Every structure is written in C-alpha cells, then in structure tokens.
C-alpha cells in the first residue's frame, strides 16, 4: 500500500479520538465550580442580568447543544475568559507558550543527548558495570518526582554553591528581554547579539531544563537499550560480524541506525511526559509558561485556564502521536500494512 492510503487511514482514525478528547474536555469544563456567566457579567451584576448572560451563553440549553456550542467556540479559538487576568485565555496562552516551548525543547535536547548514548552504551556493554549503573539510573529516574529533583538542584546549585541564579523566571531582574523573533530568549538574545541576556537566559534555563530532562531521560535510555540489544542479535548484524567488518562500523553504522528507528515511536510518550512535567517544573522554578499559568490561576479560583491547558495538551498529544505514526510509516514501509 502506498503512503497516501496509509495517511488517509491514519487521519480517519484521528477523528473519533478528537471527538472523545473534546467530549472529555467539555465535561471537565462543564463540571467546573463557579458559574462562567457570573464571571462574564462581572461582580456587580444583578441576578436578572446574570440570567440573561446565561441565556446568551447557552447555559440553559441541554448538554448536547452546549457541547456543540463549546466545539464551535473552540474552532474559533475561543477558550473563554480568565477571571484572574481578565483577558481571553487564548491570548494569555499565546503570550506564555514560547517560555514553555523553550523549556520543553531544552529538556528534550538533554534527554536525547544523554538518554540515547546511555542506552546504546548499555546495550553494547551489556551486563557490565556501565550497564548496571545505567539501569539503576533509569529505574531511579522514573521514581523521582520532578518537583523533588528540581528542589534538590535548587538547593545544591543555588543555595549551597551559588552557581545558579534564584529560581524565579527566565531572566535576571533588570535585564530587558531580547526583541521577540522566536520567543525563545536563548535564540532571540543570540540573534540580537545581546550577550548579557543570553548568559542570563542560559543560566535560568539550565536547572529547570535539567530537571525535566532527567525525568524524561529514563524512558528514552530504556527504549534505546532494548531496541539496540534486539538489533545487535539480528541476522543482518550477525552477517556483518561474520563478514569480518570492523566492530565500530557494525555497531555504530549498521546496528545503531536500525535501532534508532523504533525510538521514533516513543517520541509521543516522551512528549506526554514533558507536558505533564511542565506544569510541575514550571511551578517549582516560577517559569512563566502555560503550565504555571494554569496552576496559578487555579489558586485564585480561576479554573478556566487549567481546563484549556488540559485540552490544549491533549490536542497537542493527538497531533504529536499522529505525526510520529506518519513519520514512522514514512521511515519503515512495513508499518503501512498493519
């Protein structure tokens, strides 16, 4: 089957998932404490006016109708108002998304940069001290709550050694953020040639990115180790050994390239880990991203942003998993038949 057919089939599978995600998102929003009409009408509204707003918002309609309205609003990018900032949730999100993106990308870089070599070396040197150490590391990495890892890093690098800046935000106070091009301070300040800002941005990014990276590294290393072990025992690698090819070439040329293909599939899982970790790590480091925004809004009894966050993450998750599947189908034609 060609890639076109596979693409269509996979896209069709996404439709019921998207339906399910929006239904769950709607139910969560529906169960929220507090009356959204009250928020919209303002604190000094009369009961009559609130009832009028309720009618306008369709809150007196049956559930399925309310769901359709919710879906319609969603398609227009309307995520409702935040009662704590008084702005549309979508605008607040857009403003904070680059911070989350910067943290997520940096963590992903750390997780892959350490996780992949660790998995490969563990598989090659199976059952040696290195392998055991790697396994202990990945088992412990999964058991450590990310807020705790973050606090440990803060205690050691900020309080004891004074190497890291205070865990408050993305830049040292008094520094101007660089002109926004990508929204990522590290990239923007480098583009602008603003070295003090770049330095400060990197210093602020280091600990949260390491915290999130450590949490995600474990599953990456584990997966790479497993697929690498499998590949090393496969026939074509045995044939390569038998042909007398140099070990370096067999391991890093033939085996590694094939072992890395299945690793693409866990990118979806990794993304889920990253998004879950974001909310926590952003809170620990007062990182001004969407996760922190959702959690702090809730503290002021403003539950709208957290529902939008949940929905946003789920939609991203669906898209990422779709992209991963398509990518996999592109790399490995056998999948298309499945």
């Amino acid at each position, binding site marked *: 089957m060609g890639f076109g057919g596979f693409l269509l089939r996979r896209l069709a599978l996404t439709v019921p998932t998207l339906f399910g995600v929006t239904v*769950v998102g709607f139910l969560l929003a529906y169960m929220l404490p507090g009356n959204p009409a009250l928020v919209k009408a303002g604190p000094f509204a009369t009961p009559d006016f609130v009832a009028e707003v309720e009618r306008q918002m369709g809150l007196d309609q049956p559930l399925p109708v309310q769901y359709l309205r919710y879906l319609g609003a969603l398609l227009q990018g309307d995520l409702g108002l935040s009662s704590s900032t008084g702005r549309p949730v979508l605008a607040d999100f857009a403003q904070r998304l680059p911070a989350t993106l910067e943290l997520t990308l940096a963590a992903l870089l750390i997780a892959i940069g350490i996780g992949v070599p660790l998995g490969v070396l563990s598989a090659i040197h199976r059952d040696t001290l290195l392998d055991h150490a790697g396994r202990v590391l990945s088992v412990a990495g999964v*058991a450590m709550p990310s*807020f705790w890892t973050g*606090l440990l890093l803060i205690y050691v690098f900020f309080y004891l050694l004074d190497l890291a800046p205070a865990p408050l935000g993305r830049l040292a106070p008094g520094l101007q953020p660089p002109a926004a091009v990508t929204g990522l301070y590290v990239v923007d300040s480098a583009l602008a040639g603003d070295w003090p800002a770049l330095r400060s941005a990197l210093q602020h990014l280091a600990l949260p990115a390491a915290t999130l990276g450590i949490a995600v590294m474990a599953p990456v290393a584990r997966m790479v180790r497993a697929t690498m072990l499998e590949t090393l025992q496969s026939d074509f690698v045995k044939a390569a050994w038998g042909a007398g090819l140099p070990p370096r070439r067999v391991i890093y040329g033939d085996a590694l390239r094939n072992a890395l293909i299945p690793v693409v599939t866990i990118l979806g899982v990794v993304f889920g880990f990253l998004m879950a970790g974001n909310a*926590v790590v952003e809170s620990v480091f007062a990182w001004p991203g969407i996760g922190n925004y959702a959690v702090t809004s809730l503290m002021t009894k403003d539950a709208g942003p957290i*529902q939008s*966050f949940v929905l946003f993450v*789920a939609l991203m998750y669906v898209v990422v998993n779709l992209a991963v599947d398509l990518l996999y189908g592109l790399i490995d034609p056998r999948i298309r038949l499945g």
Partner: protein
Amino acid sequence: MEAAADIAEAAPPARGARFWRRLRRNRLSFAALWVLAAIALAALLAPWVAPFDPNLPDPEAPLAPPGWRHLLGTDLYGRDQLSRIIHAGRVNLLIAGGATLGALVLGAVLGAVAGYRGGWLDQVVMRATDSIMAFPAFVLAMGITAAIGNSLLNVAIAIGVTQVPSYVRLVRGEMLRVREMEYAEAARTVGNPDRRIVLVHLLPNCIPPLIVQATLAMGYAILTLAALSYLGLGIRPPQSEWGQMTAEGASEIVTGAWWLFLFPGLAIVVTVLAFNLLGDALRDLLDPRMRGL
C-alpha cells in the same frame, strides 16, 4: 546449579511455594518487598511507631536539624518530621491503594464485558478508553481534581480514572483470546450463565497480569498524588501527604533547612522505587514465557 537442586526434589512443591522461592532468588526485588512491608506496617501502626505526636509542636526546637532527639529534624513549628512522614504515609498508601483497587475492579469488569460480549458495547467502552488515553495521565488528573475539587475521595477518583484504561485493555485482550477456547465452549454448553462463565472460568486467567499492572500502577499513583499535592491540587493542610510536605519544605530552602524538602521526597522515591522493582520482578515471574527458568 539451581537446576540441580530443583531436580533433586522428588515432588514438585506447591505453586505458591515455587513462586515464593523464585521471588526470593531475585534479591533486589525481595528487598523491595520487605521495604514495602515495613512502610505499610509503619503507616498502619503510625500512632504506636511514630516517636512523637505529628501535630505536637516542640517549642524548644523549631527548625531543628536532624539529630538524636528528632531523627529527621523538625519543621517551623517544631513538629517532629519523622512522625509526620510516618503519619502522612497513611494518606499516601490509602489514596494510591484505593485508586488502584477501584480502577482495577472497574477496568476488569468493563474489559471483561466488552471483550466477552463484543458488539456495540465493546465499541462504546473502547472509544471511551481511547479518549481517556489521549490525555497524558497526569494532565488529565489535574483537570479532574480542578473540576470536581480535591477531597480525599475526589483525588483518588482522579487518579483512578487515569488508570482504568490500562486494565480495560488488558482484560479485554485476554477475554478475546480465551472466550473461544474449548473450556469456555464447554462451560457454555453445560448451560452456565454468561456472568458465571466470565467470573469463574475466564476472569481468573487475567489475575496474574492484573497483579503486575496494579503493582506498577501503585508507584505511578503515588507519584501522581504527590505531584498533585505539590501543586495544591491534591491533599491540602491540615491533612498531610508526602508531596504536600515537600511543598512546605520548599519554602524553607532559602533558610537552609534542607531536611524539610529532602526527607518527604525521599519517602516518595523509596516507596515508588520499591513498587517498580517488585512490579518488574512479578512481571518476569508471572510471564508464562519466563516459567521454568
């Protein structure tokens, strides 16, 4: 070497004894089992095991570092931290255990019905399962506690909901496999009602993998609970819980009181690690392909 000992025994020991012996052979996971037993016992007997009343301030020693009198130090009010951790363990184990058990029962029933009956019921259950799995588990748990509030029961429900799909999938898959087998056919021919066939004849097949899944899920439930509480979405004072205690300790980092965030977090790490190690070992033991090793 072990094989020789096995052969020497004339009569094969009972299944339970054999299982026990294999588990003991894996020293690390056997240690994990003891650690878990100790933690559970300490939580159960908290009022007798804890050296102090967890809520009683010691005016002589606010923010005392770990020492002979207070092994793990005291907090801002002079409350003994070891006693607080032991008492908080009750909440951790109760909620994680309750959520896991509830999810297991609900998931097993839904999975059994969906797998055995098939048809539209199967479709509905599986689509609902897919929708829940489309959310990263922790993020969904956040959304649920935000929506329904964070009483003990609600937090357990939030954690449980994120777990249900894994049990549904597991049991449904097993049902699809065994429902056409001859013994199931035989049970039907004799005229057993469906409920009896599923409960008595088919479901017991799923118990070993369910135990493995539940053990691993316990670790995950404790992590989720702790993270929710850390964010203020889970357990809140005056109840205490390890994640919430870590959050309290976090605000004391700037005063250098490292023991306040370190030890509650360490309690989480040790407990989760023990559940994960035990779960991994059980999976190796209960997986039929590993039998006879």
